[in-house]
């Protein structure tokens, strides 16, 4: 066996996995704060990538202007969806809310195809493009920098979640929304905050993913694997999302190279089945999730 090649394949997989992990965090954030299973996360990610494409390629803004604007756009989109569609459904059966997010996803894809057609696009470059070697192993620069950025964002998020006073409000709302409201926490504002932050994170993943593999409406399919990631990790576990994201990214890469691309998703779904059989609430989720 060629170990160097194996390591290179693994590194590429972990790089891709870091984007699963980042997007999964956006999903978990929404789930924890609002108990909504947001199946439109992949579409939100795609919109973020297109916003960057529009600002950076369409309007020819430099990347350091276009990226923050695309992130803000992604955040606004998240808040808009929450305020306009999700909040009016508060108290409805979770299945209906979940169906509505599927509908939202289709609307987002439709809108993107109307504006930009479904032709694949490439994003303006914004990462250094010298080849990266770790020891002797080569990593594509976009994958390497994507991983680094995802890791920094995740670390920042974890710090905020843990130490910022707003993070306490988020976790309190996640733990008991009625009690949080009765403690003076503005729960509707926390909902907006969660969706806004998640929208931003998803847009960020979209930009990184677009930089690695181009932009097209197909990107939204990324959300399906993210769904598998969060189910495996446990819907309400940030740590589970991180670990499962890296694991599944690595697995897909190794399987894709050694067994062939057609097995990538097969193996992912086999893992999903196994986890569902043994621990229906996910590797790190809390047991109560079972009722869904």
């Amino acid at each position: 066996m060629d170990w160097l090649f194996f390591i290179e394949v693994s590194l590429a997989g972990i790089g891709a996995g870091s984007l699963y992990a980042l997007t999964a965090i956006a999903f978990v954030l929404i789930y924890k704060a609002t108990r909504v299973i947001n199946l439109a996360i992949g579409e939100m990610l795609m919109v973020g990538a297109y916003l960057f494409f529009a600002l950076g390629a369409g309007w020819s803004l430099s990347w350091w202007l276009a990226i923050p604007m695309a992130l803000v756009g992604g955040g606004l989109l998240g808040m808009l969806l929450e305020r306009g569609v999700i909040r009016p459904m508060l108290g409805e059966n979770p299945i209906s809310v979940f169906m509505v997010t599927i509908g939202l996803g289709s609307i987002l894809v439709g809108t993107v195809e109307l504006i930009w057609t479904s032709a694949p696009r490439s994003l303006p470059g914004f990462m250094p493009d010298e080849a990266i070697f770790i020891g002797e192993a080569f990593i594509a620069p976009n994958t390497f920098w994507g991983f680094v950025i995802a890791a920094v964002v995740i670390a920042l998020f974890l710090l905020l979640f843990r130490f910022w006073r707003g993070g306490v409000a988020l976790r309190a709302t996640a733990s008991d929304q009625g009690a949080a409201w009765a403690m003076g926490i503005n729960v509707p504002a926390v909902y907006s905050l969660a969706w806004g932050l998640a929208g931003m994170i998803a847009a960020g993943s979209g930009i990184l993913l677009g930089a690695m593999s181009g932009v097209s409406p197909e990107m939204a399919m990324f959300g399906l694997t993210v769904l598998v990631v969060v189910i495996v990790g446990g819907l309400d576990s940030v740590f589970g999302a991180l670990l499962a994201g890296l694991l599944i990214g690595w697995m897909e890469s190794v399987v894709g190279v050694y067994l062939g691309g057609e097995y990538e998703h097969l193996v992912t779904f086999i893992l999903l089945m196994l986890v569902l059989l043994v621990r229906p609430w996910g590797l790190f989720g809390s047991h109560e999730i079972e009722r869904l």
Partner: protein
Amino acid sequence: MSESILGISNIEVVYGHTVQVLRGLSLEVPRGGIVALLGSNGAGKSTTLKAVSNLLSLENGELSAGRIEFDGKPTAGTAPHQLVRAGLCHVMEGRRVFEDLSVEENLVAATYARTGREQATRKDFNLVYEYFPRLHERRRALAGYLSGGEQQMLAIGRALLARPKLMLLDEPSLGLSPVLVEDIFSIIARINREQGVAMLLVEQNANVALALADYGYIMESGRVVIDGSPEKLLGDDDVREFYLGMAGAGGEMKSYREVKHYKRRKRWLS
């Protein structure tokens, strides 16, 4: 400034547009006073408190008639967190601590109640820890791992940090051992006296509640059936037998002694 901190007049509450739970309930809580609201399981006590703190919407409940005034202003249309920030703090039934947060983080969450007023400082945390030294020892523990008594202390501690004018306490004795109940109630009495916080105290444990209260209401099926001073309520045989679930003559001596016992403790502990 009106005499009472809380005035409820003739309220009716309906859940899910169908089930009427409160039928014309009225009561008042004077500033700085302790009022007990008693009644058997299902009488509508918790619903009354949720109507006051505007938390009915979470359970698809609605205030369909009547009027509630807190601190001289009607509460209708004010969001729960706004009421809390104005000084009305609801300690819900079953303690409802944030289980995945540490004790201290639970208190940090409660500082949101101070939004728009003087910000909470270290002194406020220390005040909570003075009343509940046990919480200080366990301040880094996850609230989910606390014992029932400690969780109740935390629930009251959070409310204390909110610096309310009125606390709504929903069955603080629920599931606690008699010794703990005594501890918690003597601290409730101290908070009332030392911090001037008015209390509306919901209890099934009538003896304990009436020992602290200045006035009591007994409710049944969504309305008040009798009200009066604790002496009057405990002195009335019918009330004792039918509404407070105490035996007739034999039990009287015992519970009356208990009342005196509490009053004494109340003085001693202060």
